[in-house]
Structures are given as C-alpha cells and as structure tokens.
C-alpha cells in the first residue's frame, strides 16, 4: 500500500499548475507532431529537448513524456487519412485505417483509434505503476556484472529486433558504441579519439547528435516526400465519428487484449511501440473475431494496432526508469535528457527521487485523459493540420535544428556536428541501416564500459564472474539464444518446406 500513498502524492505533484500545463502543452504538441507526415516521436522529442532546459526536471520530463504518448495518437491520423503513417508505430494502423477512410468511415476510424489508444495507454500505465517499482527491486540486487550483462543483452536484442536487417542493426549498434568512446573515458580518465580537436575532448554531445540523426535527416527526407491524397475533403464532425454501441463492443475486447500484450512487449529491452503494434495486430489477426476481414478496413484492426503502440510506449517507461535501459529510440532520447538534468535512471531513482518517479507516473494517468479529450476535440481540425505543406515545414524545422543544436553548449561546433550527423544519418537510413540502435548504443556505452571495468576490479581480472553469478549467467544465456535461434528456425523452416515440396514462405 506504500506505493499507493506515493502514487497519491505523485498526483499532487502532477496536478501542480506548472506540471499540468506542461502535460497539456506536450499533449497538443505531440498530437500535431505525430499527425504531420514525416515527423515522429523521436524527432519531436529531440527538437523540443533544448526547450526544456529552462524547466525543473520533473516538469520537463512530464512534458516530453506527454509528447511521446500523444504522438501515438497523432501518428494514426495521417495513417488513416493519407495512408502515410506519421510515425513507424502507426504502420499497422494504416492497414485497416486507410481502407476504412476510403469507405467514407474516416471519422469512425479516428474515433476507434483514439479510444483504443486511451484504453491501451491506460492499461500500460497501470501495469507500469506495479512493474516499475518491482523491476527496481530486482535491479537493486544488480552489481556491475549484472548491469553489464543486462546492457549487453539489451543491445543485442535491439540489433535483432529493429528493422528488416539484423545485420545492419548490429552494424549501427557497433557504430554507436564507437562514437560514444570519443572524449574522456569515465573509468580511467584518459582522453580518447579527439583527433586533436578541443571540441571533441568532452565527447560528441548528445543533443546535436540526436537532432542531426532524427531531426535534420528527416528534413532531408521530406524534400523527396511524395504528397499523399487526403481521403476527406470536408471537415469531419464529432457526431458522425461517434461509434455505435455495437461498434464499441467490437472495439473494447481487442483493445484490452492488445493493451496487455503491448505493455509487456514494451517492457522488453529493445522493443518499443513499433514492435508492440506489430505483435498485437498479428495476435488480433490470429485470434480476433473478424480475423479474415483484417486488412480490408475493420475497426478491430485499428483498435489492436493503436492499443498496442500506446501500451508499449507506456510499458517502455518501466525498464527506462527502473533499470535505466531504454527500449526505443524515443526513450533513449528521454534517458539522455534525464541524465542531463542530473537524474540517474536506475533502481535507486524510485527510492531516491520518489517525487519525480511518482509524479511522472501520475502525470501519465492525467496526461492520457487530456490527450484523449484533445484528440477527440481535434478531429474537426485535422484536415488543416494535415494540409500544412512540407514546403513550409522544411525551412522552419531546419532553423529549429540549427538553433537547438547551438543552444546546448552555446557552441557553433555543435551545429557543424548536427549537420554532419544529419547527412550521415540520412544516407545510411536510405540504405536501410536503422539509426535507433545507434542512439541506444551511444547512450548505454558509458555504463557498459564502467560496469565492465568494475566487474573485473571485483574479480581481480577473472572473467568467469559473468557466468558464475545467476542473474548475469541467465541474461547472457538468453542473449546466446537470440543469436542461435534465428538461423536454426530458418534451417528448420527450409527443411520443412523442402519435405512438403512447397516453396518457403
């Protein structure tokens, strides 16, 4: 019951005027950024991070978290109305959402998306309320060898899970680790890889890297954007968007089921909202009521995908806050932000900074309700948001990238860095190298290096320390499975296809 009291106190923090407005502002901004094709939650959070420097950490993270989960609502709008997912978690939403809006049921699809986002998000936050402290309790038992194995496990699963090509995921993970070694080493105090540049002595700054990788590279991408055709030509009214009783009955079960599954997917290291919606959509297709019609425009499909990505976004806060392990690109940016405000995410955060931890969780309950109301109220205006021409967005976002990168250290060098990283990020993404693993690796490397060194200090140079401690050994063996299983499954499938005489799917 102690947690319950703390949560109530958290509501006190979250309901302070400043924090309430921060959540509201984040909600509106998140919806808009999410709705604009090409801008996703990572970009949104990255561009707005510099703006939060003037705020107390709790307020800042409340706003950024609100942007993150509100983004899941907004991302579905352009998926439904334009067939262009505003963000990768909304890819699955487009499968049923766009056919629905072509059938003239855009309003219903949007309403379904909002309601199931709310249900999924709320389930995710409820589970987070319990899982966060529980994970932190487990985390307290972690010494350096466990931390090392956990991060290694997280990094490897990230490489495998993100993107179509595990090879390229691993490649960018390695690149991220190497970039993080630039600057003074935390463990031994020596300067590395500065190549004679005084600006690099302190390492590659996090915000310019993020703004370049996710902001500026997106601007470059937008230059070649194809224009989507809006399926609506008039304002939608809330009245025609409302679902009937029987439709609500169709939406609720998949939303709840997907909410639970999505949350647990989100908690897994390396799996964020995109994987969440993917898994819940597949589940719905396997066991749902209208399963054979999935993909042709059924509201169950929209419900499963949207509840899935919102709950996974909420779930990913559990490992982020209580273990310091981000599950997605966006939570990696949040982790970077937290560290800049002097908060160290990890098991001690829950006990040492209860006001922050519970304030944030409470704000998510409130924020989620605010986002739902805002999202419903915005349905009639969506047509205007989606019509903002990319032609105007390109120079404006570019300007924000320049100023944002500069203002972190008041240094023009960071602007050059942002530009270079942006160009590299754009080119490698064009060739299907995912950049989220790079960012995650970049954020986690200082900790992996410190824990590695500390582990060897503990064992006097004996590497068996990683295999003789049960938690560490379990994590490392799970990691081995990640590497061994996919090729074995591939072989098995191939063999099965050969014996049945068919071609492999």
């Amino acid at each position: 019951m102690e947690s319950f009291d703390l949560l109530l106190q958290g509501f006190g923090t979250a309901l302070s005027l400043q924090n309430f407005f921060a959540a509201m502002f984040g909600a509106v901004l998140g919806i808009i950024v999410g709705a604009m094709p090409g801008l996703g939650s990572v970009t949104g959070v990255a561009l707005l991070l510099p703006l939060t420097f003037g705020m107390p950490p709790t307020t800042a993270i409340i706003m950024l978290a609100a942007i993150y989960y509100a983004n899941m609502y907004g991302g579905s709008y352009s998926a439904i109305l334009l067939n262009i997912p505003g963000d990768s978690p909304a890819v699955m939403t487009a499968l049923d959402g766009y056919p629905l809006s072509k059938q003239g049921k855009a309003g219903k699809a949007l309403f379904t998306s909002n309601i199931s986002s709310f249900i999924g998000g709320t389930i995710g936050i409820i589970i987070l309320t319990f899982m966060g402290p529980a994970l932190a309790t487990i985390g307290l038992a972690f010494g350096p060898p466990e931390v090392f194995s956990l991060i290694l496990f997280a990094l490897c699963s990230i490489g495998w899970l993100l993107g179509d090509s595990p090879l390229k995921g691993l490649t960018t993970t390695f690149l991220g680790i190497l970039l993080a070694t630039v600057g003074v080493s935390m463990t031994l105090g020596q300067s590395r890889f500065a190549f004679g540049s005084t600006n690099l002595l302190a390492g590659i700054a996090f915000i310019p890297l993020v703004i370049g990788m996710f902001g500026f590279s997106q601007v470059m991408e937008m230059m070649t954007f194809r224009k989507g055709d809006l399926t609506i030509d008039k304002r939608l009214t809330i009245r025609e968007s409302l679902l009937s009783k029987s439709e609500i009955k169709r939406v609720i079960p998949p939303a709840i089921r997907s909410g639970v599954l999505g949350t647990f997917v989100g908690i897994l290291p390396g799996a964020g909202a995109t994987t969440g919606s993917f898994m819940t959509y597949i589940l719905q297709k396997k066991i749902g009521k209208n399963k054979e019609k999935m993909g042709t425009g059924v509201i169950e499909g929209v419900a499963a995908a949207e509840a899935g990505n919102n709950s996974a976004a909420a779930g990913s806060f559990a490992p982020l806050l209580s273990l310091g392990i981000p599950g997605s690109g966006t939570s990696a940016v949040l982790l970077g932000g937290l560290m800049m405000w002097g908060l160290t995410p990890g098991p001690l955060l829950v006990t040492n900074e209860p006001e922050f931890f519970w304030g944030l969780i409470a704000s998510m309950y409130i924020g989620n309700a605010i986002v739902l109301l805002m999202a419903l109220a915005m349905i009639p205006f969506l047509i205007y948001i989606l019509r903002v021409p990319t032609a105007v967005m390109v120079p404006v976002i570019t300007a924000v990238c320049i100023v944002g990168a500069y203002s972190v250290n008041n240094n023009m060098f960071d602007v050059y860095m942002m530009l270079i990283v942006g160009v590299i990020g754009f080119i490698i993404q064009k060739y299907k190298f995912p950049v989220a693993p790079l960012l995650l690796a970049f954020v986690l490397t200082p900790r992996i290096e410190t824990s590695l060194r500390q582990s060897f200090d503990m064992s006097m140079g004996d590497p068996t320390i990683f295999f003789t401690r049960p938690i560490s050994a379990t994590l490392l063996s799970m990691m081995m499975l990640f590497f061994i299983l996919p090729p074995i499954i591939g072989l098995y499938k191939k063999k099965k296809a050969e014996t049945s005489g068919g071609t492999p799917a």
Partner: protein
Amino acid sequence: MTERIIAVFLLLVGGVWAFLGLTEYGLWIEDGPGGGFIPVVVGILLMLTAVVVILKNEEIKDSIEIKAFFPVAGVVITILMIKFLGMIIATGLFVFGWLRFMEQRTYVKAGIIGLGVSIFVLGVFSLWLQVPMPTGLFGI
C-alpha cells in the same frame, strides 16, 4: 554501389578505432579492460559486419535524389550568415529566402513566416532560456 561505399567507410572507422585502441589507449591494464578494450573489440566487430554487408551486396533501389541535399546547402549558407548577421536575423532570413526563392511564395507570406521564426528564436531561446546567441554586425 553506395551501400558498399558506406560499408567501406564503416570498415575504416572500425579499423581506426581498433588500431588506436590497441596502440594508444591500452587493451588490458591492471587486471582489467583498459581504455582501448571496447574500441578494439567493437571496432573489430564493426569491421566484420561491414565486410558481410560488402559481400552480401543487397540491391537497394531507393536512390538518393540531389534535392535532398538542398537543406544542407541552406544550413551552410545560414552558418555563414550567422557570422555577419547573428543567429536571430540569420535564421529568419534563411526561412524567408527559402520560401521566397525555392518555394516561390509571395514576399509577404515568406516575410511573415521568416519574421515569425526570428521572433520565436529571440523570445524562446534568447529571452526565456537565456541562451547567449552569436551576434552580428548589428549587435543582435
């Protein structure tokens, strides 16, 4: 082809990191990994994955259009303008110029949006967040 160029670049990065890690920063110091340990291990891993990428040589149709690099030129010009005009004027002027000459918006429309960006930078970054912006010839 470009994919192979990227992979060769990554191969070089991995090589430089592994080499410096081994020769400069120390692989193993006092019974534990030195500053060069992670650069060497991960540098070699990066070289390996880069080689696999080169050997696989997947065909990717998505070619890069030259248009995508226009914003890069925009940023370079803005950086030059910042030296003379300061951050606030330079960013606004960049937005104005882009909208007027690249996107053929009217002077008024481009001017309003450009001015809006300058006011945003001044209000939010200079006044609210107290970021000391680079100033130009006019002192702002």
